């Protein structure tokens, strides 16, 4: 009799456990935005998407690249959400506020230090101990070159996915150009040599497949 009750309990547990959400590894994302695109609609859409998709316990950071040398001053916000949903929502509000209030420094260089920002983002993500790490780049990578000094720099990007977001029409057209294409391939090689994954997103709707929400 007792074993039958125990079996029924076990079956019920498994049945309900089967209905619960599947396991999700802790995630962390870092968004690098070109200063010229900071107040653009795609930037706002990406930030809004991440704010709604992030779960308690996950991390998110935003940096704005506007100079030829990336530094700490270019980071807008970096935060690890609390495990409690109510506090996590408050932190998201704070993050949104910081993003809206941020004013970029005036652009002072012909080229932006996206490579430096990328290295900084990878280092920041490494500190979170997240198992899934994402670096999103909202900048025209076809226009920017990897500095010669950094080309041979050993990147440590295992488990890190680098996602350039190319959604503006002009940018897409520019991407078709041979030189831009070559630069993009150079970026891809650089990331993959460091052990990272390269995935281009041409449509913001695809973000839901790259970084699924709740």
């Amino acid at each position: 009799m007792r074993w039958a009750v125990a079996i029924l309990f076990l079956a019920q547990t498994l049945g309900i456990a089967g209905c619960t959400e599947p396991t999700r590894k802790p995630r962390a994302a870092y968004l690098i935005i070109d200063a010229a695109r900071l107040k653009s609609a795609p930037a706002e859409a990406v930030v809004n998407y991440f704010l709604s998709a992030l779960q308690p316990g996950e991390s998110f950071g935003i940096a704005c690249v506007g100079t030829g040398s990336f530094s700490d001053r270019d980071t807008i916000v970096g935060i690890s959400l609390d495990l409690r949903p109510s506090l996590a929502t408050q932190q998201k509000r704070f993050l949104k506020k910081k993003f809206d209030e941020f004013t970029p420094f005036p652009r002072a260089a012909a080229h932006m230090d996206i490579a430096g920002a990328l290295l900084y983002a990878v280092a920041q993500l490494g500190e979170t101990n997240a198992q899934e790490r994402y670096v999103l780049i909202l900048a025209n990578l076809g226009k920017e070159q990897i500095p010669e000094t950094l080309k041979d720099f050993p990147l440590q990007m295992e488990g890190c996915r680098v996602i350039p977001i190319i959604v503006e029409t002009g940018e897409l057209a520019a991407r078709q150009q041979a030189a831009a294409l070559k630069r993009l391939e150079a970026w891809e090689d650089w990331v993959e040599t460091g052990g990272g994954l390269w995935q281009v997103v041409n449509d913001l709707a695809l973000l839901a497949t790259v970084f699924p929400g709740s």
Partner: protein
Amino acid sequence: MIHRDLFIIWPGSPLLSVLLWIGVAVAFLYLARFPAHRAVISFTRMIHGALRLASRSTLFLERRVVARTREVMINAGMEERERSLEREFQRIAEAVTCDLSGYPSLQRTLVEQSGQIDEEYRNSTVLPPPPPRWVRAVEALAKLPAEGDASVEPILSYIHKTVESQYHAAMADYNRAVTDRQAILKRIMPYWRKVSETLDEMGTRIKRLEERAKLVDISMADYEEIRSQSDQSVRALAASSMTRFFTAAALLFIALGGVLLNFHLIALPMSEMVGGGSYIGSFRSSSVAALVIIFVEFAMGLYLMEFLGITRLFPSLGQLDEKMRHHLALFAFLILAILAGVEASLAYVRDQLAGELQVFQQSLAPTQGAQPVSRWIPVTGQMVIAFVLPFALTFGAIPLEALVKTGRSVLGIVGAAVLRWAAFALRALGHLFLHLGRLGVQLYDLLIFPPLWVEGLWRYRCKRTEGFLEGQAPQ
């Protein structure tokens, strides 16, 4: 030279080579005919024998399962009838204690009432005083003729007046006496009514007892039927087990729906307590915590039903004395009520969290979202559901008990049916192999039909020569 060329007997004519090979093969097969027949028949008979043995073993097992299931069903049925009888006897005892304990007072009331009635009746029999005896003398004087004597006339007239006044006085006395008797009889009426009501009440109580006694008779008849282990009673028990099993399964399925609803009500707010991003194994800590709460509630419900004597899943709990069971039932109910309160508050927190998240999501959206019609109705609804569900799930213990108790019988019935079909399938398969062996022999002979035909012809001629088959054509 390739391997194919090895089989060419007649160079330059592959067809001829193939025919020659066929001829060789047929000759070889003809020579090996009887051993091949024996091999095929032996092989198929071996398989047939093995399958037949397996079928018999399966049937034997099926008989054992049927016997065991029958035994289990009879025992379960007897136990159930015993419980039913016990319950009926308890009810009768309660009825006797409750109803017939008032019998002495009822009897006393009846005696008092009848005494009152008797006394009143005796009072009512008091007659008016008879008319005085001298009235007859006066009547005789009154009959004398009044015209003859002038001295008599006034006397008679006086007598007449006296008689009339006496008559009126007597009538007045009589009327007064009758009125008094009627008043007394009227006073008796309530006593009669009360006696009648008392007797009616007694009759109703006796009738109730008779009905209980009839139920006991029916249960006893059932019990005797089961004890006799007749096929009819076993069939009835099997049908009853199946019905109860499926009904209990359906009810438990509904209860499972309730558990799922409960889980979704408290899983999100649980993340506020244990954290939303932590995991135990491959499951969220909040989900595990919610499940633990639900299972503790269900367990408390089970214990509550057990302590109240509604279910009997754990005999050791049933053996506790009445007072202890009462205290433990109260304790289980208290824990259940506390957990229900916790769930209601969690449901409130859930609504708050969901609302806050919704507001934040709306602030991110470029357009303003629609506002809910009412905020308090869903909150109240969720809280009420979260509070009521643990108590409602308590009743899941009843179908659970039925499922567990009938599960063994149903499993036995289904197992026996499966074994019966397996035995049939094994036997059929054995026969199939036997006939396949015979078919194989026939096909073998079909392959070597030319030498067989020649052999038949030769035998026919031999026999004809010997004069045995005159006038018959060769087959």
